């Protein structure tokens, strides 16, 4: 067993662990009973969304065809995901660093895809051609910019948290730790660039993982500089930690937007019932009331309250 073996095992394990725990966490939210409606306007999928309106502006709305404008929902979603529009409008100082930070992470995700494709080329012994060149240079541009701005964003957010009197006294050590952890990974990546400026070792190591050779002992191993090994191990630790933190808000956001704030669909559209919804309601009303206050009908079904 060499260090590269250990690093490879750590990479496999942390990746699988992160994916499994994240799926479990998401499924926990996804399995929640259908809650009471609690939408918040404007709802972009509504036809009347431009002025913040809803189908409830129509007399006898249940007789009308209530269309869902998925295109407009997607546009709003992307504005929020890419540009963090709400933060831009409501807290500009925070937005500058937040935008750099999140933008950097997005670039690093795309960088990872470019490295992944590069490692496939390596496995397929492709060492030239337009696609090879495009992905090679794309990985350089994305990697260098992504690492830099994620680092600047994370450090900036730490500095803001520490100096913003409105939020620093409410920040627990973990709030600093999360950003510091990411900053540390970025620093380690910057350090690794001195030994692997073209990400060649990174591609070879990923090819080693993808091929499954990383699971085997005794097969030929790629070279991996110590600095890169440390980076990979830090990323592994991060993957083990990530699912338990609020940094998975990218998943939570799907539910807060799509399943709460934008969930305005009624049970009846054009005088036809949504049978699925009615089933879920029936199921909910069969649950028993557990509350203890004198007026609470403890033990009764919601249908009987």
């Amino acid at each position, binding site marked *: 067993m060499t260090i590269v073996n250990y690093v490879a095992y750590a990479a496999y394990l942390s990746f699988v662990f992160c994916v499994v725990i994240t799926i479990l966490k998401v499924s926990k939210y996804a399995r929640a009973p259908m809650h009471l*409606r609690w939408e918040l*306007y404007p709802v972009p999928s509504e036809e009347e969304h431009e002025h913040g309106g809803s189908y409830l502006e129509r007399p006898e709305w249940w007789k009308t065809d209530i269309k869902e404008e998925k295109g407009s929902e997607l546009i709003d979603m992307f504005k929020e995901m890419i540009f963090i529009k709400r933060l831009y409008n409501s807290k500009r100082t925070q937005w500058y660093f937040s935008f750099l930070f999140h933008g950097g992470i997005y670039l690093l995700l795309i960088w990872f895809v470019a490295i992944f494709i590069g490692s496939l080329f390596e496995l397929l012994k492709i060492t030239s051609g337009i696609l090879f060149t495009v992905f090679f240079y794309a990985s350089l541009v994305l990697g260098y910019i992504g690492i830099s701005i994620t680092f600047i964003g994370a450090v900036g957010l730490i500095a803001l948290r520490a100096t913003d009197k409105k939020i620093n006294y409410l920040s627990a050590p*973990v709030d600093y730790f999360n950003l510091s952890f990411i900053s540390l990974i970025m620093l380690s990546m910057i350090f690794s660039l001195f030994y692997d400026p073209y990400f060649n070792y990174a591609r070879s190591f990923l090819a080693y993982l993808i091929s499954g050779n990383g699971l085997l002992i005794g097969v030929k191993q790629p070279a991996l500089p110590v600095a890169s090994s440390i980076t990979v191990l830090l990323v592994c630790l991060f993957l083990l930690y990530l699912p338990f933190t609020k940094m998975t808000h990218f998943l*939570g956001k799907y539910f807060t937007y799509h399943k709460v704030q934008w969930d305005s669909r009624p049970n009846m559209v054009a005088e036809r019932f949504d049978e699925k919804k009615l089933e879920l309601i029936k199921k909910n009303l069969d649950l028993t009331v557990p509350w203890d206050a004198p007026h609470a009908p403890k033990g009764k079904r919601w249908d009987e309250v």
Partner: protein
Amino acid sequence: MSKTVDPKEFSRENREPLIKIKLEDLLKLEGLKEEPPIKDPPAVWTQRYDFTLDGHAAVGIPIPKNEEEKRALVEKFLNGLEKDLSYEGNWTFAQQFKLSLDYCAKCGACEDACPIYTASGKQNIYSPLYRSEILRRIYRKHFTAAGKLFGTLVTGDMDETWQLITRLIELSYRCNICRRCAQVCPIGIDNGLIAREIRKIASQELGIAAKELHENGTVLQLKVGSSTGMNPEGFKKIVKMMEEDIESKTGLRIKIPVDEKGADILLIHNAGEFLSWPENPEAYAIIFEKAGLSWTLSSEPVGYDSVNYGVWYDDIQLARIAKKHVEIAHKLGVKRIVVGECGHATKALVVTAERLLTRENYIPRESVLPILAEIVDKGKLDLDPLKNDFPVTLHDPCNIVRLSGIVEPQRKVLKKIAPRFREMEPHGVCNYCCGGGSGFAIMHSYNFDQWKNKVASRMKVKQILDAFRQELNDGGFKYVCAPCSNCKGEIRDFISHYKLWDKFRINYGGLAELVVNAMNEVKNPYITNNEFH
């Protein structure tokens, strides 16, 4: 200068208020030279009830008599929180509640969106983030693996005292649940919902709620028929009086239909209208009759009062009242329920109750505003807008706009009948609460009125003064149109407090009154410009 109270201090046992509201800290109101001073609460209250949040009380939680009572308060709250986190115990809101507890990044984007925080001079305890963070710390400590393993590294430092609980419950009644904070949150965290869930835990587990919402609110409504205390006989007498009133004011003889089986519409008003602003249901009686609609009121208990205070603090009461409304409509055999000018009642019955109804008891429900807009738009009434030749601004009730998406109908009406209509800024779905939201409009216990007038309503006072800036001191009549009973109640209170009628001739009222005032058929002014009530 406002004082920063850290969570540790918030949880500390002592008898002094964490903050003191001072006039010099509050949002400045341009155009208003003086306002009543702020008074301290009398000792007779502070010795018996916990006033240590900000020297005011909405709920007035009695100070526990011994250690056992103190412990029970904390334990019961934790039991309630556990139930509120479970999908079975809280199927109604657990998903959005848990999301809001788990994912806040504490960026503080929500703070400046909050009219209460801003108007208070940015007192940190009123920030949406602060209130939620107090609950999040309790949640993380008791209900997350990270909190149990790593303690204060994850939860932050805070003691677990009885005053942590009493102050937190009081603090949940310093939020209007207008959800402006949720609207600006990049992650979609709903700190307004967290305030509501704190109230709910207190109500459904500890039996603690604002008296006006529970005992004199939903309980009274379910018992006698209305949170105003009005019983069916009283209601029928008022309907008779309204018919007489319509005739004496307008010369029109209108028979108000009550319990008309098989009518198309069951119209349900907030019963507060019948007592405080009968001109509003009278206006609807005139408009609906002239438009030829088939409609009726109900004299069945609960059927003549659309309010559903449960939407602000208690899911059990919310469900009970919504089901009662629906049951009455079925008994009358109407085709739809129409909710009068009342924001929270619209939100509760038209939106929230949707997922309490099964196929068997489903009945379509809608707000009266689109119907009114259609009547005006289609020219079913002969209207002369010049009869409303005075400055009019529109207050957007949060429950109507941001929470139900009904934005344009009221504007369509005003643009047709009020030539001097101007918007407040901001308006529509970005509006500010009147200060009476989440039940504040009807809550008058202890010195809560003082806090409401000085802090909760302050942003709306500023908006109104700004909307009438050009004519503020011209001595002319001005009208704040508020198509919501609770908003009207709050606006009435703060107009009196700040003497806006005496100083600037600023009055208020509903939307339907403006429509009737513009009717050519109505000879005398329906809106009188020489009295405030």
